[in-house]
């Protein structure tokens, strides 16, 4: 084959191959946007659920809730206490 003809064939092959690749990549990108949207929606819904659960957790661990629930359950305040250790005596010159 003569060189110019060979070159033309190679160039034409490259053009066709690159065009096909472009079609494939563009096709993937166009559907990736939909996947991205779905992922974003899922992420947002998890974030919202996380925030709502945290709100509930904070409610249940608040002192006001614990105090009211404990009094309903019959817990009472500790009125007596005792100490096991005494403070160290002061070194007083006698």
């Amino acid at each position, binding site marked *: 084959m003569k060189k110019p003809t060979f070159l033309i064939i190679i160039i034409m092959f490259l053009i066709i191959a690159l065009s096909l690749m472009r079609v494939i990549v563009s096709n993937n990108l166009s559907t990736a*946007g939909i996947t991205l949207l779905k992922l974003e929606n899922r992420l947002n819904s998890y974030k919202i659920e996380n925030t709502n659960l*945290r*709100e509930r957790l904070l409610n249940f661990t608040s002192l006001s809730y614990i105090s009211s629930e404990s009094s309903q359950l019959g817990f009472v305040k500790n009125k007596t206490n005792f*100490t096991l250790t005494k*403070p160290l005596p002061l070194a007083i010159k006698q």
Partner: protein
Amino acid sequence: MIWRYRLTLIILLLTFCLVVARLFYWQVVKASELSLLGQSQYGKIIKVLPQRGEIKTSDNFPIVANKISYLIFSNPKEIKDKNKISLLLSKILNTKESSMSAQLFLDRFWVPLKTGLTTKEKENIEKLSLPGIGFEKQFTRYYPEASMAAHLLGFVGKDEAGQDKGYFGIEGYYDRLLKGKGGIAVQIHDALGRPILSRTNQNSKETKGSNLILNINRSIQFIVEEKLKKGIEQYGASGGLVGVMDPKTGNILALSSFPAFSLLDFQDYEQRLYKNPFISNLYEPGSTFKPLVMSAALNSKLVTPQTKCPVCAGPISVSGFDIRTWNNKYFKDNNMVGIIQHSDNVGMVFVAQKLGVDKMVSYLSAFGIGDLTGIDLQGEVSQPLPPKDSWYPVDLATKGFGQGISITAIELLSATSAIANKGVRMEPHVVGAVEDPNGKISKIPPKVLGKPISQETAKIMTEILVNAVNKGEASWAKIPGYRIAGKTGTASIPVKGRYDVNQTIASFIGFAPADNPKFVMVVILDRPTASIYGAETAAPIFFDIARDLMLYFGIAPSE
């Protein structure tokens, strides 16, 4: 023949050059304009919401957090049957049908209907698939401990531009740190509205607000609020304040005042309730001021604990005014220990006169009286001391026992903490650390404001105050086994230029354990009706709280 080929070639080449030139024009010269046009047609602006920083107590519990809520809006142009929709929505949203209808009949593309919807409410409305109705996600403040420390925290309202802004307390003082910065992102969509992956541009960066970690101890705050509320009811007071501080660092462990307001529904309360009375209200301290004046005299070596008062046998006359003791009992040759123990006004006049105006002003200024303490809360006030040359003899006398001078509760707490802290006065501080959006924590170190008295004077004054608790009018309420230093106060309230003896500010200030104080606390009751005396109202509340604090700190009795 050849010329035809050449002509064709030239025409083709010219056409080719023309196409290239036109392409260059549209893709290079007009590129930015076309890109913007494309964004406006196919771009969706996504507002990235700023999250306001949280406020946490010392145990890292968020006492102020953010929760997700929704703004429901409508596009009236898309709603055909406006009457039906307004009736339905007004029932679901619990609003008046007339106002809902008025909104839906507006000639606009976007009309807000209601804010603060919960996720569940939003989902219930979404299920109805109403046309022209949409939702916008928002962050609103949420208070897990309800209205605990309402005055201390402040609230979040709106500014003139409709943006979130903190008012009063910590929300106001640290507004710039707490507020985040909203960002904008532009996402390109295709003709069918689907997002194109490669074209999400962040035009401006969004930043969350910084979190604040307070020195406030949640358990102590809870104890204080409970006891103060109970005390106000028990003694029939119009209001009350309690402040607890670590004298060694200036950390505010608890700050409570009533009447307060609900942080969620602050707009339903009178505006006068928004101010934190602990830092914004001036009052005459009465006998709780005496330890400061006595410390000044002791530090100046003008008196010693054993110095006898030569004028304490009866009332004293100063510039034609008779000054008496609170109970009209007089102790001849009372010494300084006895003057504090019996809360002897005449004895304090003697001490004040010994000090003189110059030293009085100098020491009071060193104690921070008449100055802002620098506490990190919005709304602190102070009344400057009168200039020395404007003091009359009766002013010196009355200021000696805490009348005729107006201070805030935080000034008194800060000044007395110097006695508890070996003579060193620390700056009161509510916020202990700041956590930036990246999680880096910057601690705020304690700050020394000054040393008004020596360590020796502080120790002597502490012993005098311990004696006052053990043998004074409040001795009946003290906690057995513990050495607590303290002083009662019963200050008459000036009404129309005269003191009304039936209306008082009853107070008690003290610190414990006396030898190594863990806390200094002041309790103030406004106009108690069960009894006007601090020893019978504020003192029991103080010791009730102190009892629980001793248990909380694990402090064993020392006696």
